[in-house]
């Protein structure tokens, strides 16, 4: 009995000690020489190790962008794969510096969990995937189905709400790991698997017979996915946010990883200012970084469009349309405040 209480106490102490060390995240990151990002354990297009063991994906590249902004070196990013259940304690305790792990921005996560969200690097929505053999054309025909879902996600809650609102019965089969949930669906334990639409397309690729599965047309929720940091460190929050804004601004201004060196001499003052080529600029140092911060991001990782195309867009196996993630100038939602 004593032992149990003791081990619980030691666990609590570890939590306390870890978060005590995280007051100024930027200093910690600079001291240890790398930024540690919490990522998912394997969602193609978002964060997934490729056949050479290298992490790839839009969330991973966000983290590399942060490393490039701070150190001028995208390889100084370390990745910690986290299940959806482990991700929040990992960020709270300081195990990771930032969570770039397709996490939906919700009010309760923003408040009671003690996190801060600001940028959305992927606008998503929840959908369903079913076997074509079932002849289901709409999610409204799913009454009585067994639904595989990952625990501890907004997906799980949206699922409950959607079936309740539409007065449909279902049998939830809940798994802790995404991989377990999808294998169970693939093995026929469930009729339906549900997660964010981007995830559905990604997971379809991993199935035994991808062509026998289809994504239903309904999108039942708003899932703004973005990075989360701990509350109480505004400087770090600013850096994480502006990495995304720099990438979106770069795309808007036509700056790519290929032309970024020439663009430093561009006549456009917006571009020069962003890339730190303006005389006497203090934008980068005010952020706590060097004036080359945005140049380094674009040079080493690319602008938002390049990253999107490479990880989830036309140059990836997922082939997802830009849709909501197009620039605001092209009818999408990606909009960044000016670098000025």
């Amino acid at each position, binding site marked *: *009995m004593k032992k*149990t*209480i003791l081990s*619980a*106490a*030691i*666990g*609590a*102490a570890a*939590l*306390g*000690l870890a*978060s*005590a060390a995280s007051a100024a995240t930027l200093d910690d990151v600079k001291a240890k020489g790398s930024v540690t990002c919490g990522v998912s354990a394997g969602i193609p297009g978002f964060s997934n190790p490729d056949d050479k063991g290298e992490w790839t994906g839009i969330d991973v590249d966000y983290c590399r962008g942060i490393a490039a902004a701070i150190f001028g070196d995208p390889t100084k990013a370390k990745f910690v794969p986290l299940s*959806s*259940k482990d991700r*929040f*304690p990992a960020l*709270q305790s300081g195990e990771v510096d930032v969570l770039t792990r397709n996490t939906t921005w919700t009010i*309760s*996560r923003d*408040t*009671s*969990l*003690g996190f801060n969200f600001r940028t959305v690097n992927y606008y998503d929505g929840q959908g369903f995937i079913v076997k074509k053999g*079932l002849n289901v054309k709409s999610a409204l*025909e799913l*009454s*009585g*189905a*067994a639904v595989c879902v990952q*625990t*501890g*996600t907004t997906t*799980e*809650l949206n*699922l*409950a*709400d959607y*079936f*309740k609102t539409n007065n449909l019965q*279902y*049998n*939830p*089969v*809940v*798994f*802790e790991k995404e991989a*377990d*949930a999808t294998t*169970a669906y693939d*093995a*026929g*334990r469930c*009729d339906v698997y549900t997660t964010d639409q981007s995830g559905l397309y990604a997971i379809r690729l991993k199935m035994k017979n991808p062509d026998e599965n289809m994504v239903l047309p309904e999108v039942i929720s708003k899932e703004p996915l973005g990075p989360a940091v*701990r*509350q*109480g460190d505004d400087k770090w929050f600013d850096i994480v946010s502006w990495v995304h804004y720099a990438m979106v601004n770069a795309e808007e201004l036509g700056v790519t990883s290929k032309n970024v060196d020439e663009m430093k001499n561009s006549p456009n003052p917006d571009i020069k200012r962003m890339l730190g080529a303006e005389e006497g600029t203090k934008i980068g140092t005010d952020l706590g970084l060097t004036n080359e911060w945005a140049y380094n991001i674009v040079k080493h990782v690319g602008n938002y469009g390049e990253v999107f195309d490479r990880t989830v867009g036309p140059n990836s196996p997922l082939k997802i349309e830009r849709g909501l993630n197009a620039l605001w100038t092209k009818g999408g939602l990606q909009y960044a405040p000016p670098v000025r």
Partner: protein
Amino acid sequence: MAGMALNSDTPTSRKKASSLINDPKARGIFYQVLTLALLVLFVWTVTQNTIHNLQRANIASGFGFLDGRAGFDIGQSMIAYSSDSTYGRALIVGILNTLQVAVIGIITASILGFLIGIARLSRNWLIAKLAEVYVEVFRNIPPLLVIFFWYKGVISALPQARESFELPFSSYLNNRGLFLPKPVFGDGTWLLALALVVGIIATVFMARWAKQRQMRTGQPFHTVLVGVALIFGLPILAFLALGAPLTFDYPVAGRFNLTGGTVVGPEFMSLYLALSFYTAAFIAEIVRAGIKAVPKGQTEAANALGVRGSDITRLIVLPQALRIIIPPLTSQYLNLTKNSSLAVAVGFADVMAVGGTMLNQTGQAVEIVAIWVVIYLSISVTTAIFMNWFNARMALVER
């Protein structure tokens, strides 16, 4: 004791302080107090540190979240539960599921374990060897692997819903579980329950009377046979007298799966089978050790007195063996209960899985870990108290 003797020899004129330092009793108390003080200090520091850090990180704390709307559904529930229920109720669903698998698992593991333990002692070479192989296999692989074996190896390999195995009594088996007809009781069902209770009470009194009579006259009585007749016979008589008010809700093919009836899900089945099979191997060894520990002379003495073979086992060997078996058996029951937390691996909604979901939806890590500790501690302590009581009762027979 030697120290005490030395102390009493020393003249009282010596300094009192030094005698106190040398007094082993005083020193013992001093060190105990010191240890306790350090422990209290440690726990207090840890608690303060945690509270301080939680406040600084702006993380909400406290147990108020238990009254909030859960918002998620649970696949397996013994009580009414929907996404509108509270987190507290979700937790109760989890606790009940844990208890369910633990209780049924303990019963199955005990029966299986006793059979295999006795089989290992069999004079039949094949039976003894088969039992030995069983014990060695299940004892030497981790329980998680046994769960996966059942879940991924056996139940996932069963046919899809449309090609279900048809079992007797309109039951079906497929990779979604075991579908059984659900009994629907008509009017007057409470009379059946009443008949059962009356039967049990009558059996208890009958057994007492039979024992007293045997003590007085030496005449044995068919206690078991009459007891079975009372416990099962009375409800059956009542059932027939009421005109058999029982119908069944049979599982039928639906849009996606079989509907109606009652279903035992693959998650529950694999966890239950794995825990039972795994723990049974340990119980078998305990049973074998217990029986082996009864001195051979006991059997020989009984033989010499002309006691019948079955009576030797029932009245002489087993009661003595049971006393040796019960304490280690308690540990196995506790192990089985704790191992049920592996349910999370196959998605069975036990208290660990439900708590994990709650942890994620609310972010109350410290509170939920504390709840887990308290729940498992309570279940284990209750089991241990019961088994200790049972053990004490059995031990009293000793002369």
